[in-house]
């Protein structure tokens, strides 16, 4: 019975995510349709290329078809794992996207994990000393961090890399990466990701600390905490065993909600630090009018977002018994 309910719960969420995904892909197709000009417009000015050649190319890439036809065509190409065709790269979009998605995930997942590892103890600590100096310091620090735009954080770390020379100044791997052994490869990627990950962690941290603090303060006012305190439960046990567990629900919801902000911040950090993720690819594609690549990257970001939300939903289901239907 229990498994049945859990599966149904996840299926509903999955179905919803799927509908949103279709909506987003249609929306981005509409935006692409509205885009003036295409990658072929410059070819038309080239006297060496005849008008018929351009027309043939437009026909080949299906630029003159109607919108529903184009969309249907694109859906078919998803089935082949291609996600359309990138004119600028002269390759299917899919293989271009996968490594980029992997790199973005590497950056964002590490940064999120780090940010939570810092935010939970700091937020808990601030909440337990509400109004005290520790709380005020934490509040001041988070407000200060919140006011520094991600662009500036990224540029600051890049400056650090360029000035000191201790860190790689961009990219994800060194020249000659392929020749390295597996451990050296790992070390190489880690040293390259150190600064982008730190930048992204710092950008996501203040919001998390604030939320952890706020939801813990909410919980600490609950009667059951008073009761536990009266029963002589130690303050530390009270905070970490009782309060934190009760505050898990809003925090896990926040994990799902923060994915969107995380991906946006990651786009900026990736672009500044030339991390080969989805962000720089999308900006390149917008500049090059590579419509299928834009649609692909945007859809991919939605997939990541939905996956993050599903993960949070699943966790919530596991952690919070109130969400489970009563066991018969």
């Amino acid at each position, binding site marked *: 019975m229990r498994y049945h309910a859990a599966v149904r719960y996840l299926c509903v969420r999955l179905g919803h995510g799927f509908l949103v995904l279709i909506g987003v892909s249609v929306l981005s197709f509409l935006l692409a349709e509205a*885009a003036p*000009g295409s990658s072929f417009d410059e070819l038309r000015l080239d006297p060496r290329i005849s008008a018929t050649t351009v027309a043939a190319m437009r026909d080949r890439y299906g630029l003159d078809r109607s919108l529903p036809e184009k969309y249907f065509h694109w859906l078919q190409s998803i089935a082949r794992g291609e996600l359309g065709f990138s004119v600028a790269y002269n390759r299917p979009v899919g293989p271009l996207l996968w490594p980029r998605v992997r790199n973005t995930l590497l950056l964002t997942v590490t940064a999120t994990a780090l940010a939570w590892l810092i935010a939970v103890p700091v937020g808990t600590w601030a909440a337990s000393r509400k109004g005290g100096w520790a709380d005020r310091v934490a509040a001041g620090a988070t407000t200060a961090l919140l006011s520094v*735009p991600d662009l500036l954080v990224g540029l600051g770390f890049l400056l650090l890399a360029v000035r000191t020379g201790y860190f790689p100044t961009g990219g994800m791997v060194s020249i000659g990466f392929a020749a390295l052994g597996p451990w050296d490869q790992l070390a190489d990627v880690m040293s390259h990701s150190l600064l982008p990950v730190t930048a992204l962690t710092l950008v996501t941290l203040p919001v998390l600390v604030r939320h952890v603090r706020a939801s813990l303060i909410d919980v600490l006012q609950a009667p059951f905490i008073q009761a536990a305190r009266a029963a002589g439960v130690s303050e530390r046990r009270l905070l970490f065993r009782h309060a934190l567990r009760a505050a898990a629900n809003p925090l896990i919801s926040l994990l799902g909600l923060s994915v969107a*902000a995380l991906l946006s911040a990651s786009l900026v950090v990736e*672009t500044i630090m030339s991390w080969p993720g989805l962000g720089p690819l999308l900006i390149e594609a*917008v*500049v090059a009018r590579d419509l299928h690549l*834009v649609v692909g990257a*945007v859809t991919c970001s939605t997939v990541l977002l939905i996956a993050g939300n599903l993960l949070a939903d699943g966790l919530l289901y596991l952690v919070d018994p109130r969400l489970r239907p009563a066991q018969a």
Partner: protein
Amino acid sequence: MIGDATTRGTARTRASLSARGRRRSFRLVLGLLGLVYLSTVFAGFLAPDDPAAQHRDVPFAPPTRVHFVDGTSRLHLRPFVYGLARSSGDSEEYVEDRSRRYPVRFFVRGAPYRIAGIFRGNRHLFGTDSPTRLFLMGSDDYGRDQFSRFLFGGQISLFAGLLGAGLSLGVGMVLGAVAGFYGAWVDETIMRIAELFLALPWLYLLLAVRMALPLHIEPAEAFLLVLAVIGLIGWARPARLIRGIVLSAKLRDYVVAARSLGASDLYILRRHVLPQVLGLVVTQGALLVPQFILAEVTLSFVGLGVGEPVPSWGNMLASLQRYSVLSSYWWMFLPGFALIPVFLLYYTIADALHQRSGAFSV
């Protein structure tokens, strides 16, 4: 007992004092923010130079030092600056040429400008004698005065955020109110579309919307375009929040009473429902403006927003993408640092508004 009463008394005075103090500091913050915006409006007068004027002989000049004391330790009441010279023949380093003092003059005639596009003028708050230039924030690679560009760039960046937030709140308010008020399929449709816009990370959405618009355009059009893009991406969240308030408001007795007296939909919306969302709209606005200032800065930074020669804080920062500029010329960071106090002011306002209208938890 007496002691107890006194402490209670002082506590009360302190509370009312702090309430008054809070009001006063709120006004101070509002005033400061107004001052920042005003100084960009009067950029023409405050800036010593035309933002597009190039002085190719002095690229990347460091901020000019304003002196009061000369080489012989004599104090001058009128501040002065020295001219720039290369430290050696082909060096890129600048040194002060101390052979001659150039006094800083006030209300000098200079490049013509317009204020708010209407009032013409050619008086500048300060300046110095040709051929020396007073670069308060240094110069960029074309030898353009960064301080002048910074003030004029603020016109673009700060107002793009403010107007963009106004636009998206306006759209959000109308759509949210309509959805909440009419319910049924109107509500369904609007909220499903809002969900799509919320399902995308906002920078990805920003770039996707940017794709739908022409790549190379005139700076003035680019400004409007950035505004349109921002307005388009930002409406969904406020629309959702406002819909919630409208939904609960339309069931209130006084609304039902007004309706039974024959009030029209528009009248009820205007008189009874929308005043309730104003607090939320203003608080949301204070949170949205910094985000949208950043949207303009980010777009212009990656070359998809307002383009040269018109300055914006975003395209001024764009030169930092070259490592040589990044590592050598610290003053190129200044437009970025200016964002921090502006954001702080907005967040302070949002916090204060949030506390004042404690009923709304956003």
